[in-house]
């Protein structure tokens, strides 16, 4: 891509927990329009790096900068599911709509534009029929698609995905990748952590291999 705007700039970045460094002295740029796949073994630091980009983990040293006028509330994020969420009493619609909370300082009521956008995102992930269902009663794959719908609602310029196809059947996996590729074609920048190397390589415009990064360090 020519003259692509840089969105995320990592300089001398070190990330980790306690005394353990998972990412060390990393220089890396993510540009507008990238479809970046992050692959590597368990524990190689893929999720940690994504959390760093998402602003959930402060760098031990170095910096992660949002560039090109990218604001945090233009980012959509699909985290791995937590224990708390598995038995959470909330309707699918409530969860998807909560994506808009970051975009307004004060949002006591959702407007019809919010509801329409939420419906679009639910349609994309084939969850619109589950709109009134209770999140804790859904199957693992349905839950995952609901969380993707929420991430799509929040994503205006950048979409961060942490193992988006975990627990999905082959059909849903296919749909998931098609939705992501469609968004990418429309100009969305995508950063995805995945184990699914083959599919990742098909669609991705760039691949970041954490196995190689750590071996290079050694």
């Amino acid at each position: 891509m020519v003259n692509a705007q840089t969105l995320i700039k990592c300089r001398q970045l070190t990330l980790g927990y306690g005394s353990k460094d998972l990412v060390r002295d990393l220089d890396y740029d993510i540009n507008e329009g990238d479809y970046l796949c992050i692959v590597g073994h368990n524990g190689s630091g893929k999720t940690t790096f994504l959390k760093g980009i998402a602003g959930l983990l402060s760098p031990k040293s170095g910096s992660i900068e949002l560039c090109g006028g990218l604001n945090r509330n233009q980012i959509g994020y699909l985290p791995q599911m937590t224990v708390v969420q598995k038995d959470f009493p909330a309707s699918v619609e409530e969860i998807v709509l909560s994506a808009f909370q970051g975009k307004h300082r004060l949002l006591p009521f959702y407007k019809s534009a919010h509801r329409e956008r939420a419906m679009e995102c639910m349609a994309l992930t084939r969850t619109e029929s589950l709109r009134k269902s209770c999140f804790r009663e859904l199957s693992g794959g349905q839950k995952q698609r609901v969380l993707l719908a929420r991430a799509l609602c929040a994503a205006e310029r950048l979409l961060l995905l942490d193992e988006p196809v975990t627990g999905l059947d082959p059909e849903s996996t296919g749909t998931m990748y098609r939705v992501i590729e469609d968004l990418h074609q429309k100009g969305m920048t995508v950063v995805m952590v995945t184990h699914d190397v083959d599919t990742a390589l098909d669609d991705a415009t760039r691949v970041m291999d954490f196995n190689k990064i750590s071996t290079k360090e050694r």
Partner: protein
Amino acid sequence: MPIDKLLFYLDFPFVRYAIIVGVLVSLCSSLLGVTLVLKRYSYIGDGLSHVAFGALAIAAVLKVTNNMLIILPVTVAVAILLLCTGKNARIKGDAAIAMVSVGALALGYLLMNLFSTSANISGDVCTTLFGSTSILTLKAGEVYLCVVLSVVVLAIFVLFYHKIFAITFDENFAQATGVNTAFFNLLIAVVVAVIIVLAMNLVGALLVSALVVFPALSAMRVFKSFFAVTVAAAIISVVCSLVGILVAILAGTPVGSTIVAADIVAFGSFYLMSLIQSRES
């Protein structure tokens, strides 16, 4: 006739005060209770109320006339410490709460014993711990304070209801997509502390957790959306407190434990309802 007896008691201002404070406190505590239970902080009510008890002892020793001036800031400070250090704290959530909770209880009792001028220390302690009479001895000033604080708490909750939902369901997502989670966690901690201090008057320091936990858990058995759970918890809590206070007045039982007993009955019924519900589907 119980009705006549009730009307007779309602003529007394202290009974009306008790009902006003009871309704407001149970309303506020149940609203925040849903969030606390879901965030796995069910025991925070217990911990903070013991801290409030310790602060009360300090206030008694220092002979401060308006003990709220000490209790409220101390409890708020501890709440912030417990709820906002979060993931990076050296001592994790439940352990920190347990430590602060028993520590404050022990030191409070110690202080009261060492410095108290009262002839009936164990009676005083029992009253603060179980709130056996305190709600029936409220003064007009305390009722006004309670009304003002409750209205502020309710306003905050309504205004930020969706933000509170977003943070409760997925704090990481909220933070990653631009919600100021640090601020809202701080806000929740302060509000929780205020509610706990208010609720101590109602049921006493040992039973505060019940007001926070029971209505939320009852509502979560049956209802399937966060909004329905929140509204149902509020209604359950207010009804149980009203029933508890009225029964306590009529039957002469301790107010706090009667309210909690009503909450337990409500939980039992909702649990049964959920069993029937799941059998039908």
